[in-house]
């Protein structure tokens, strides 16, 4: 049995923590959060690129480090811990994963080295309004290599150079790579302003298909599976940080003549957070294993990682605010950075509600087989 990070991965993780503790403090998040004109921190983005993290899972022949996905998971956990204000998920978990999954050799050779170097910010555009996108509901269309339609919201759509867009081509859903230089971009107000989002309007821009005709929904789900696992590690990192914050605050806060960390109401709350965090970590590890080995179990493993990750981070984030009492509701205390990010991460790869349905459908098939 070898179901944990390796020593090398633990070393990578501890180096990542040191780096991010120094470079991605809450102040860095707040600089983006508090300034409506900022969508991300370009300095941190550059530094992360220099560390090679953007290409951690990209093969060496395409300019990456070729470390594999478990190493990327270790980095993701640390990025989640510090609620990093950079388009890492959009570019690495969605865009790069989609290219590695479905791209032609030419597309990989063109795009992956630019991602690894930090030159290319990518995004993944599927949503067109309230509710999850389906083949039947798609109104964005591609005709003769040109795309028309509106995607809303697209995380990092305002800063991305290219998007992978779900659109209908002759009535069949497909994924398309679109350069965003001339696309309409409207920055949107969101719950977590440290991660930006935009409304993208396409009016005849060139669109290059990624993967086969009609494969759009299946590919989107496959990309979501991969992103869900990686995001689950950000969620685990964030949830663990929330538990630490709540613990530290409770220990130092005195009420009724003693530290509130000694009251069972607080102790049991923190124990509940711990239990959820451990379940989320174990499910995330299984997802990492399935992703790294391209196991047929990936859709089920990713669903479980996603459901547990969403549950743990949201629970830890909201109970961290609660443990801080009135202070937790202030802008000055960092608890809300995690509260916001928990919701942001809980929705960007699709709501847990949809993943639960997806999981049970898979279990039904497995159970019938």
């Amino acid at each position, binding site marked *: *049995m*070898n*179901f*944990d*990070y*390796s020593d090398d991965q633990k070393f990578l993780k501890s180096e990542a923590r040191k780096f991010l503790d120094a470079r991605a403090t809450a102040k860095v998040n707040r600089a983006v959060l508090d300034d409506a004109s900022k969508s991300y921190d370009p300095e941190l983005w550059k530094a992360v690129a220099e560390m090679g993290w953007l290409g951690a899972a990209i093969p060496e022949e395409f300019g990456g480090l070729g470390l594999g996905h*478990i190493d990327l998971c270790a980095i993701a956990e640390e990025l989640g811990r510090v609620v990093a204000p950079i388009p890492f998920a959009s570019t690495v978990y969605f865009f790069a994963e989609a290219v590695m999954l479905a791209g032609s050799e030419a597309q990989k050779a063109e795009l992956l080295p630019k991602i690894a170097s930090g030159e290319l910010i990518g995004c993944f555009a599927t949503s067109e309004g309230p509710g999850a996108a389906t083949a039947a509901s798609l109104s964005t269309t591609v005709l003769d290599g040109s795309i028309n339609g509106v995607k809303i919201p697209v995380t990092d759509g305002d800063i991305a150079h290219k998007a992978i867009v779900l659109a209908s081509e002759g009535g069949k859903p497909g994924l398309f790579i679109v350069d965003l230089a001339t696309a309409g971009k409207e920055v949107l107000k969101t719950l977590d302003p440290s991660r930006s989002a935009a409304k993208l309007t396409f009016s005849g821009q060139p669109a290059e298909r990624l993967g086969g005709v009609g494969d759009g929904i299946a590919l989107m789900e496959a990309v979501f599976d991969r992103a869900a696992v990686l995001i689950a590690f950000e969620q685990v990192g964030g949830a663990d940080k929330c*538990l630490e914050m709540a*613990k530290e605050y*409770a*220990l130092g806060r005195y009420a009724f003549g*003693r*530290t509130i*960390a*000694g009251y*069972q109401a*607080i*102790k*049991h709350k*923190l*124990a*509940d957070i*711990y*239990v959820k965090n*451990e*379940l*989320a*970590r*174990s*499910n995330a*590890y*299984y997802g*990492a*294993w399935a992703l*790294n*080995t391209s196991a047929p179990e990936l859709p089920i493993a990713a*669903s*479980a990682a996603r*459901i*547990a990750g969403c*549950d743990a981070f949201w629970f830890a984030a909201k109970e961290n605010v609660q443990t801080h009492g009135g202070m937790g509701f202030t802008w000055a205390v960092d608890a809300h950075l995690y509260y916001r990010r928990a919701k942001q991460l809980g929705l960007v790869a699709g709501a847990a*509600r949809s*993943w*639960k*349905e997806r*999981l*049970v459908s898979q*279990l*039904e098939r497995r*159970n019938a087989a």
Partner: protein
Amino acid sequence: MDFNDTAEEAAFRAEARAWLQANAPKLNLTGMPEKEVLKHAKAWQAKKAEARYACITWPEKLGGRGGTPIQQVIFGQEEAKVGAPRGFFDIGLGMCIPTVMAFANDETKARFVSPAVRGEEIWCQLFSEPSAGSDVAGLRTKAVRDGDDWVINGQKVWTSGAHYCDFGIVLVRTDPDVPKHKGLTMFWIDMKDPGVTVKPIHQMSGGSNFNEVYFENVRVNDSQRLGPVGDGWKVALVTLMNERLAVGGATGPNYPELLSLARSTPSGDSSALEDQAFREKLADWYVQAEGLKLTRFRSITALSRGQTPGPEASIGKIVSANQLQAMSSEAMEVLDQYGILSDPELAPLEAGFQQSVMWSAGLRIAGGTDEILKNIIAERVLGLPGDVRVDKDVAFKDMPTGL
């Protein structure tokens, strides 16, 4: 990251599997009376001891194999597959005998360790009392010094296996004039002593898995004392520390059974499995159950790497017991009015869910209540302070009892 054995582990697994196939008894234990099962279990334990599979991590001179914790886990996994009778010796070999080994004199160790390993003698642990459950240090069974002897009077409760055990370790109060933790002492006792009476407890689930044990003028020699007089609490902590890596938690029907039940139960024009509210809950239980299994894999990984497992194993019972109760209740909801039936001839899965809805209520209490387990996670894992102790500096005899 993978789920494979190392080369040495694979070799040990193959060896264990081959030995089990050649030696494990082919038994159908379903419906067999406990006395019969016990007979088979003792024979099986003797066979394992002879082949050095009984206490794998113990030194060879104590009847063990001098093996590693991961070998113990692997043997346990393989043994579970062959359906051999187990469980009778876990408390004795996992908790009582290690306490005897840590605190008894050489003569006592020489007398007891080997027969326990071979399954000839079974041990029980006598700590809990009617007025000392979560607060076990508040126990009232007393031992009074009389020359070279001590005389024990009182009552223990929730003692697993007391009715078939030969010996036990018993925690008693030897000094009521000092605060509660300081007045305790540990002894080993002969369960066949005429002053010991064992009565089964009739549980709300209908069965009787535990006992009350009464002591009436049970005379033990001072040489049966384990550890110094007044040091019983420290000795008890050693006993509890020796609890084995918790591998199980709740057992009973799980999400696959619930899924099948819902699939075969009509609801409106289709089946209960089509109900969206049910599907969401099923997803949550799958994620929890798999999360627990995978958490155990993490602990086993630590053992495989020669490390001590982290505190993550502490979440097992609290999650699984609550989940079993919730899933069993949901199974009844799925069955609608038919859910009230607990007749194995009529209820699906031979009334497995009806049994577990009753049994799970006890699981949330046994071996540490949900509330105590949360305290333990908060204090030992997270490092939060203990509760305010109003009884810490009060002589035991002056403590309020509510009586």
